[in-house]
């Protein structure tokens, strides 16, 4: 369904140097599949996810969506595809302030058409019921706990019945127990609706839930195999340079910056 082939992404910095974030990513995600991507902070995980979700475009390589190239899509078409096919869950929840929980979940349906548009409040309420927040519809998001806010975000990501859920460090702002509960919900709900789930994380326990695992380092994606989820000792070996579970990974070196036109 999603197919990245040798995708590169580089950006020109303010001082006119070119930063190569992704140097050749190849990834295939099939319908209903759960994939996890781990990697240090600043390795380009969010960039990769944004490309998958049509929020960003590759500099080079090919991204096929249902076998069709996404290169020549108009901005309008990209926006429509994004709304119809993808649901996003962000680390910092990204709920709309000043709107109730219900309005937040109904918001994506404002860009839908027909029945989905007109019955948006009912659909949103049903989705909130599913994530266990059926009694908080009229609350403002800032009255909710972090875990509850992320559940609202999950309901919002799923309310248009996307085929792919893109979760960018969904447990990054939550404590371990809450994170586990939220991930369980996300896994279950994605499985129920048959949506594929691409989760980006630097939490190994979160990654361990997925069927396939990749590690993003030096701008390329490397498949990794999980030795055993029951033996935490093997996890560090598995991710290699990622520090201990759940700890901050900030301060890691960013991708190399090389002069414009230089070799990657």
């Amino acid at each position: 369904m999603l197919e990245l082939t040798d995708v590169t992404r580089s950006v020109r910095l303010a001082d006119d140097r070119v930063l190569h974030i992704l140097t050749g990513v190849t990834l295939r995600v099939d319908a209903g599949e759960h994939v996890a991507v781990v990697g240090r902070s600043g390795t380009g995980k969010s960039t990769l996810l944004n490309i998958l979700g049509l929020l960003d475009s590759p500099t080079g390589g090919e991204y096929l969506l249902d076998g069709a190239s996404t290169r020549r899509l108009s901005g309008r078409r990209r926006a429509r595809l994004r709304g119809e096919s993808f649901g996003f869950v962000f680390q910092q929840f990204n709920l709309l302030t000043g709107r109730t929980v219900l309005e937040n979940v109904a918001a994506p349906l404002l860009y839908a058409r027909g029945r989905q548009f007109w019955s948006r409040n009912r659909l949103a309420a049903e989705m909130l019921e599913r994530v266990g927040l059926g009694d908080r519809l009229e609350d403002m998001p800032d009255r909710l706990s972090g875990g509850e806010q992320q559940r609202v975000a999950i309901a919002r990501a799923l309310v248009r019945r996307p085929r792919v859920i893109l979760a960018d460090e969904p447990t990054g702002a939550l404590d371990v127990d809450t994170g586990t509960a939220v991930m369980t919900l996300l896994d279950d709900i994605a499985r129920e609706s048959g949506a594929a789930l691409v989760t980006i994380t630097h939490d190994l326990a979160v990654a361990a839930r997925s069927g396939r695992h990749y590690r993003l380092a030096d701008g390329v994606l490397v498949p990794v195999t999980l030795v055993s989820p029951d033996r935490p000792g093997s996890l560090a070996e598995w991710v290699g340079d990622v520090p201990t579970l759940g700890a901050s990974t900030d301060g890691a070196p960013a991708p190399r910056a090389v002069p414009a036109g230089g070799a990657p």
Partner: protein
Amino acid sequence: MTGLVGALVEAWDELRVHKLRVLLSLIGVAAAVTAITGVTAAVGMLGQAMREQTERWSGRETTLTVSAYPVTGSGDAARASEAMADVVERYSVAYASRVGWGQMAVELPGGTQILSGQVVDPAYGVIHRIEPGQGRWFAPSDADRLAPTLVVNQAFLDALAVPDVSGHPTVVLQGRQGVLAEVVGAVPDQYPGEPPTYTVLTDQVERWGLSVDPWGAGASPPALELWVPPADVPALRDRVDQDLRAALPGWQVDVTEPVGEAGVLDSASRWVIIAVSGFALLLGGLGLLNIALVTVRQRIREIGIRRSFGATSGRVFFGVLLESVVATLVAGVVGVVLAVVALDALPVDRLLGTALQDEPPFPVSAALTGLACAAGVGALAGLLPALWAVRVKVIDAIRY
């Protein structure tokens, strides 16, 4: 369809979230629209009041007054009257009236009295906006009736010893022979102690020879009033002048044009209102712009989030623009409603010192202009944020 509704829902939600700030800046817009509509309406009413007041005295704005005097000695008043009637018929003037003064001998319960009164044609009532307090003014058919009809003042009714005109009071007028006249309408006395007076139709006076001539000076010839469309005034003026001179050799004929007055206040005050309202609108618009700029940071993130839901850049532009247009339009509607309520609640009669016969219609055009200005200011205030909103880079917006 769903796109437009969706954008409207979004705009409305956005306004709800920023209620207080939006409200404050919109007060200016609402006030401006109230001012534009309300003052235009008030000026319209004031002008109408002044016009009606003037017209009660000198006839409607575009009334030509024709007077004719015999230059040498005495002329035949009846011939002048006839010549005038001819002119009216020739040029098909819809509202025309001969206006003269007459003396009649009236048999009142206290004895016969010579009373003076006005001798006019039925159209005089329209030209001078006469609405009798009781009964009615003359109908065109009254001129053809066999028996004369009278519109009298209150003092006349008192002299007749009848309370009002509901009982169709009659009175005997002495002319070539006695004739029973019916009182069909009554007007209040113009001032306390006004003597009994009446208005009677020219045709009836002539038919019954009602005019008495106590001093033997001969009946004075009537004047002629012609209420005509403004555009016809110059042409008709000359024609009437020529025709009457031809029909009445040896007479002095004068055609007086109306003195244009009303409208001065209108145009001068309108400019002041427009300037002040424009200023208020501008301030309201700046207030909205200010809100947009203050909430920039929050908006960037929101726009990014909405883009992730599938909002196209067109939709984002339109949504942000619509936000302020919806806001100012709502303010505009509030302004119009306020103006309507205010005008309704104001005791216009007492303020203007006179009841209006023809209340000017509510200035719909002013209301629409106000609304259009409000929407325009909204669009202008929204344009900058909207242009800027479509340039928001989604990935930067949701990055944090």
